[in-house]
C-alpha cells in the first residue's frame, strides 16, 4: 500500500518535472523585481501589475518568437540588499531573459553588480539622478536633463523666476539633482544668495518653520519658485502648510519631480491646485494610444478609479522596446538584444516616438503640468522636440567630460572625451 503511494507520488513529481522542463523550453521568462511589501509597495506594486498586463497582452497577440512569455515575480520587500539577492535568484536560478524592476536608486545600485556579473538585462522605469551608465541596464525613466532642467527653464522663461528654493528629502536623488540644478542656475547667472537649499528627513511632517522661511525668502520682490524633490508622504503636509500660510501657486509656484497622478490619488488636492510637476507623461494627455492604454489598464486592474502615471509609461515603452529588439535580434541572448535595442523606436503614449540611444537612455518629450482639482494634470508647456537623456550631467565638474556610448567603437559607459579613456568602471 505504502509502496503504491510512493509510486504515485514519484510519478507525479516526475511528470511535473518533465512538464516544467518542457515549459521552460517553450517560454521566455520575464523577471519582475518590484517591492510588493514594505514602504515602496505603494508605488512599485503598480509597476508589477503593468508588466503583467503587458505580458498578458503580448501572449494574447501570439507571444514572442513563437513562444509564450512567462512572468517570474519576486518580492524584494523594499529591502535594498535583498534586491541583489533576488536579482541573483532571477538570473542564476530562474534564468530569466530580462528583468523589469527597481524604483529607488539605492535598490538599482544594489542590483547592479549582480547584473553585470551574471550579464543580465534590466529595464529601470523611474526618473533618477543620472551619473550612471551600465551595459546591462536600460534607463527608460527621465535623466535630470529630461525633467529637472526643462522644469527650471520653464519657471525661468514663463514665470520669470529669479530666486530659487531647492527643497528635497535627504537622500541621493535630491542631493545629486540639486547639485546639478545649482550648477545649472549659477551657469545661467543666478547669484548664490538667490538660491536656498533645504533638506528634510524622510516622512517630515512639521513644515511650518520651513514654509515660513520660504515665504520670507520669497518676499523680497523678486519672483521666487520652489523646485521640490521632496519624496513620498512628506509632500501632503508640505502643500497643506503652503496653503495654510496663504502661499498660492501664483505667488510662489512649486514644481515637483516626485508628485504624479498616483501620489495625488491619496491627496485632498485643493491646496495644490496650480502647482506644477514635470514628467514625460501625464494621464490627461489626449491621444489614441493613451486612451487605449488607460482603458486597458482599468480593465486589467478591475478598478475604474485607478490612474496611470509616468513610471508606468516608462515600463510600457521599455517592454515594447525589448519585444521589438528581441524580434529584431531573433534571440533573447542578452548581448545581441543589448545591441539590437539601440536605435529601437516605440510610439510614446503622449504622441511622437521614443528612441533608445547609444547611452541606454531614451529620447522623450518633457511635459510641464499644473495640478487640477480632480488630481489630474493639465499640460501648460511641452518641449518642441524630444530630449535625449544624458547619463552624465554637463553641469557637474566631475562628469562634464564623460559620455556614455555602448556602440562600437567606444563601447563604454563613462568615456572621458578629453583623455579619450574609458575608466572601465561601469557604475
Amino acid at each position, binding site marked *: 500500500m505504502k509502496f503504491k503511494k510512493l509510486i504515485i507520488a514519484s510519478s507525479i513529481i516526475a511528470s511535473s518535472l518533465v512538464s516544467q522542463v518542457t515549459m521552460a523550453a517553450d517560454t521566455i521568462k520575464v523577471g519582475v523585481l518590484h517591492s510588493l511589501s514594505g514602504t515602496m509597495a505603494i508605488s512599485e506594486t503598480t509597476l508589477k501589475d503593468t508588466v503583467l498586463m503587458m505580458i498578458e497582452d503580448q501572449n494574447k497577440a501570439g507571444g514572442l518568437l513563437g513562444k509564450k512569455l512567462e512572468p517570474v515575480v519576486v518580492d524584494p520587500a523594499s529591502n535594498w540588499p535583498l534586491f541583489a539577492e533576488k536579482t541573483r535568484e532571477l538570473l542564476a536560478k530562474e534564468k530569466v531573459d530580462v528583468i523589469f524592476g527597481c524604483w529607488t536608486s539605492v535598490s538599482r545600485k544594489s542590483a547592479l553588480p549582480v547584473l553585470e556579473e551574471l550579464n543580465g538585462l534590466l529595464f529601470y522605469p523611474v526618473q533618477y539622478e543620472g551619473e550612471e551608465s551600465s551595459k546591462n541596464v536600460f534607463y527608460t525613466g527621465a535623466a535630470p536633463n529630461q525633467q529637472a532642467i526643462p522644469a527650471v527653464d520653464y519657471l525661468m522663461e514663463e514665470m520669470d523666476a529669479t530666486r530659487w528654493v531647492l527643497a528635497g528629502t*535627504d537622500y541621493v536623488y535630491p542631493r545629486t539633482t540639486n547639485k546639478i540644478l545649482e550648477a545649472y542656475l549659477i551657469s545661467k547667472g543666478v547669484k548664490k544668495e538667490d538660491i536656498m537649499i533645504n533638506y528634510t528627513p524622510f516622512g517630515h511632517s512639521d513644515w511650518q518653520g520651513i514654509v515660513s522661511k520660504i515665504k520670507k525668502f520669497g518676499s*523680497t*520682490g523678486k519672483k521666487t519658485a520652489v523646485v521640490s524633490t521632496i519624496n513620498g508622504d512628506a509632500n501632503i503636509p508640505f502643500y497643506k502648510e503652503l496653503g495654510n500660510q*496663504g502661499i498660492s501657486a501664483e505667488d510662489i509656484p512649486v514644481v515637483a519631480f516626485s508628485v504624479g497622478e498616483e501620489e495625488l490619488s491619496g491627496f485632498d488636492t485643493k491646496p495644490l491646485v496650480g502647482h506644477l510637476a514635470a514628467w514625460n507623461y501625464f494621464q490627461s494627455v489626449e491621444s489614441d494610444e493613451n486612451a487605449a492604454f488607460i482603458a486597458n489598464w482599468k480593465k486589467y486592474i478591475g478598478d475604474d478609479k485607478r490612474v496611470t502615471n509616468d513610471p508606468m509609461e516608462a515600463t510600457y515603452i521599455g517592454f515594447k522596446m525589448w519585444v521589438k529588439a528581441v524580434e529584431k535580434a531573433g534571440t533573447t541572448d542578452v548581448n545581441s538584444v543589448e545591441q539590437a535595442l539601440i536605435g529601437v523606436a516605440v510610439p510614446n503614449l503622449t504622441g511622437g516616438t521614443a528612441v533608445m540611444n547609444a547611452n541606454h537612455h531614451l529620447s522623450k518629450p518633457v511635459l510641464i503640468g499644473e495640478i487640477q482639482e480632480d488630481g489630474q494634470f493639465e499640460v501648460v508647456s511641452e518641449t518642441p522636440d524630444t530630449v535625449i537623456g544624458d547619463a552624465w550631467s554637463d553641469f557637474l565638474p566631475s562628469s562634464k567630460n564623460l559620455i556614455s556610448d555602448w556602440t562600437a567603437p567606444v563601447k563604454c559607459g563613462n568615456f572621458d572625451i578629453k583623455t579619450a579613456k574609458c575608466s572601465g568602471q561601469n557604475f
Partner: protein
Amino acid sequence: MKQIFSVLLSCILSWQVLASTQDLDAFQRTDTDSDLSQLVNQLPKTKLKKMPSLVEKIAHINNEKTHDVLQFLLNGELFYTKANKTVVHAVKADNSLYVLTDVLTSEMLVPVEKSKLRKVKTNNRLRGSIRSYIAKIDLTDEDKNIRIKAVKQLLDNPSDSGLSAVQELISKEKDKDVRELMNITLLLNQLKKGKHAEKIAAITQLEDTLEPSVKNAMVSMLEALPTESKTDEQKALAANLSKVINNIESKRGVFEVIENIFFGLSLGSVLLLAAIGLTITFGVMGVINMAHGEMMMLGAYTTYVIQLAFPNLIEYSLLMAVPAAFLVSGLVGVIIERGVIRYLKGRPLETLLATFGISLILQQLVRTVFSPLNRQVQAPEWMTGSWVINPVFSLTFNRLYIIIFSLMVFFTLLLILKKSSLGLHVRAVSQNRDMARALSIKSDWVDAITFGLGSGIAGVAGVVLSQLTNVGPNLGQAYIIDSFLVVVFGGVGNLWGTLVAAMSLGSINKFLEPAVGSVLANIIVLVGLVLFIQKRPKGLFPQKGRAAD
C-alpha cells in the same frame, strides 16, 4: 484737435473701468456686449501664448459680465463645448454631470459629461494678471475684505491704471483699513516716482509699514544709489532710507522670534498629545506599549470613516471624530489589556515584544481593510487658512486650534487624575499596588481602565494628526519614537513633566531648525537628550519617595 481727441480717448480708456455712472452705462451696454461676446468667442481658439493679450482686451471692456468672465477663468470654471465651441461656465453637479451656463447670455444649458467639454486653459502667469484686472474692478466692491484684497493686489503689482483708480477712490473710501492700505499704495508710488522732497516725505510716512513691498522698494532704491560721490540730495535720501529700513528690520525680527515660539509650541502640543497617553500607561502600569502609535493611527482612521459616513458634515466631522476616536481606540486598548497584557504582568520585555507584535497586526489589519495607500482626510473650512495679524506675522488656524485643544485635553486629564475617584484609584495603584489592593481597590479593573484611557487619548491625538499628516498604516510609527522621547525626558508618570518636556523639545527643535536645518536639528535634539539622560536618568521631574521604586 487731434491731440485733444487722443487725450480724451486715453482718459476714457483709463476711466472706463471706474465709470459707474448710470447714463454712460446704458449707451455702453449695447456696444460692449457685442465686443465682449466677440472676444469671449475667441477664447476656445486662442493658444496659451496669445491668451494674455486677449484677456487684457476682455478686461478693458466695461461690461457687467467682464468680472464674471475673468473670475470664472481664474477659478478654472470656464469651459467650452467641443461640439460648437460655446464658452460656458461649468460647475460639477452631484451626479458627476456638469451644469452649464452660457457666460454671455446667462442661459442655462443641458448638463453634459466632462468628456463633452474642454477647459479654457490658463497658467500661473495669466492668473496673476487676471487677479490684477479683477482687483481694479473689485476696488468698488461692497465687501470690505474684497476691497482690501484688491488694494493689496495693486500694492504688490502696481500698474498705472490701477494707481489712478486708487487715487480716484481714496477720498470716497469710508473704511479706515482700506484707506490706509490705499494710502500706502500711493505713498509707495510717490516714493518711486516723486521728486526729492516728496520721496523724503513718503519715507517718513512709511516708517511703520511692515508690507514687504514697501521694504523691498526701499532696499532696491538704496541699492540703486551710487556708492560714492553722492549728491547732497542722494545722501539725505540714503540716510533716511537706511534708518527706516533698519527700523522695519528690527520690528520684523521681533515678530520672527514670536513666530518661532508659536511654531515651537505648536510642535510641542502635537508631541504632548501623542505622548500624554503613553505617560499614563507607562507611568502608572509600567507597561511599555509599542502599539501606542497604532492607537493614534486608529484614531486617524476613525476620522476618515466619519468623513466617509457623513460626507455633508465635513465642517463638524472633527467634533464628531474626537469622541468616536476616543471610544474606538479606548476599546481596542481595553481589549489589548484584558487579552494580552494582564497575562504578562511584571515582565516588561515580554510586554514590549507582545505590544510590538500587536502594533504589526494592527498595521496589517488596516492595510487589508483600507488598502496600503494613504487615505484622504479633508480639512474643515475653519481649520484652513491663517489669522493675519500684520503683513509679516500670521498664525495658521489649524495649529492655533491644536495648541488650544491639546491644552484642553491635558487639563481634563489632570482633572480626572487629581479630582475623580478613578484618578484616586489610579494614583493609589501606581504608588503601591499591594497596599491599594489591600484597601479593596480592584487593581485589575484600574489597569484596564487606565490602559483604555491612555489609548483613548492616543486616538484623540490621531484625530489631530489626521489634519497635519498622512493618514496611512505607517502613521503611528512616525510618532512612537517622539512620544517615548517626551515621556522619558519629562520623567515617567508625571503629567506636568510631559507638558514641559513636549513644549521644550518642540521649541528647541524649532529654534534650531532655521539655523542648522531640520535634519541636523533632529540629530542635535537626540544627542542632547542622550547626554541629559546620562546626567538625570529619571528625566526632568522624577517621581520622589516610595512611588519612585
